[in-house]
């Protein structure tokens, strides 16, 4: 039966002639596509710049410049971004783009080049709760340096119940990002006794498991959090990601 269908379909295809130089045409088409993308990027950058300039002025004029008590000013500009965790902001990418999105975990992923915010750690807001959507992806990266090579998907996409992730994400962001450096977890203040157990980063000689929690918050803003597992000998050592990791593991299992 299927052989009959296959035969009928193949016979239905007329003799198709290839263009004289298909490669040249593909080259021209790729160049046109790149040109269009560049033009769109420039337009988007110009629009974003305009918004960045206009928004503070408008907020200031409206007297609402401090709508969120925890804004960029709360975090010193020179504070390094926490290792192994990076939120991103901005709308979820449209279908066809590379990167993690709602209900989407690419098979191969360059963990550090999804968006500029991943690298720079420029996100400055907590997610607005309740979350609308949560997508979980688990990747295996061959090197401790996440910027080297690509990661392979091991699990996901899993659509997680947003209600179960609101509090863990909020706690994680609050403790990892917004805490001033002097009281940041893992940074003991002068005179304080160090924790009795050390925390271990993943071995640089083994594959690294990285979980990505992609969220869309109540305002429709998409963010994602990269979780590299850190093992602490002292169970009481501050681990802001513990609650979020536990929520991930409940759905994906242990890494």
């Amino acid at each position, binding site marked *: 039966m299927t052989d009959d269908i296959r035969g009928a379909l193949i016979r239905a295809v007329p003799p198709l002639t290839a263009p004289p130089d298909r490669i040249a045409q593909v*080259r021209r088409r790729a160049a046109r596509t790149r040109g269009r993308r560049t033009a769109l990027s420039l337009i988007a950058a110009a629009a974003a710049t305009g918004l960045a300039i206009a928004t503070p002025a408008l907020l200031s004029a409206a007297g609402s410049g401090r709508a969120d008590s925890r804004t960029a000013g709360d975090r010193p500009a020179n504070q390094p971004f926490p290792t192994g965790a990076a939120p991103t902001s901005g709308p979820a990418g449209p279908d066809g783009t590379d990167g993690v999105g709602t209900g989407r975990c690419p098979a191969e992923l360059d963990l550090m080049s999804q968006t500029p915010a991943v690298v720079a750690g420029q996100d400055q807001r907590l997610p607005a709760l309740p979350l609308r959507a949560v997508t979980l992806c688990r990747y295996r990266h061959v090197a401790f340096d996440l910027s080297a090579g690509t990661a392979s998907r091991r699990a996901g996409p899993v659509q997680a119940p947003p209600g179960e992730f609101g509090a863990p994400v909020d706690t994680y962001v609050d403790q990892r990002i917004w805490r001033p450096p002097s009281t940041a977890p893992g940074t003991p203040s002068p005179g304080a006794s160090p924790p009795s157990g050390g925390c271990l980063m993943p071995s640089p000689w083994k594959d690294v498991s990285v979980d990505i929690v992609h969220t869309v918050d109540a305002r429709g803003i998409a963010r994602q959090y990269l979780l590299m597992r850190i093992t602490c000998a002292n169970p009481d050592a501050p681990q802001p990601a513990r609650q979020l990791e536990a929520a991930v593991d409940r759905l994906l299992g242990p890494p």
Partner: protein
Amino acid sequence: MAPLPEDFAEFVAARSAALLRAAWLLTGDAGRAEDLLQTALAGVWPRWGRIVAGGSPEAYVRKALFSTYLSWRRRRWRFEVPAAVPEPAGGQDVGAELAERDAVRRALARLSRQQRAVVVLRYVEDLSVAETAQVLRCSEGTVKVQAGRALAALRMDPHLRADGDAEVHR
């Protein structure tokens, strides 16, 4: 503009015929088929090195071809009408051959875009249900349902039924 990788040109030369055939079955038109193939190839070219490193460039290009087709149908080809003029062809019984070709093309045109993609992947590209689901980014159950409906539609299609000699009736 970066030079084309040599193995990309080799791939295009070796696999274009099969990909173009699939594109024709999807679009029902030689010009659109070539357009579809070139668009898919232009999309994968900038990432060719990584695609080859991934180990299955043909599967990736096929996926790009079908994804492009599905997105094009949504954007531009909503009101596609199959061409009524058959292509000239040789052979002993040209009339019968053209009639069957035209019947199959009309029957395919009556399927939904996803059903047509499933038919081409399953019965022309000879992919498994799981592989088809992976290409189309849907569940295996969806593939089975769409394939079943497509086959039923092909069997019931008046063009094929009127012709009587199309193979899908056997």
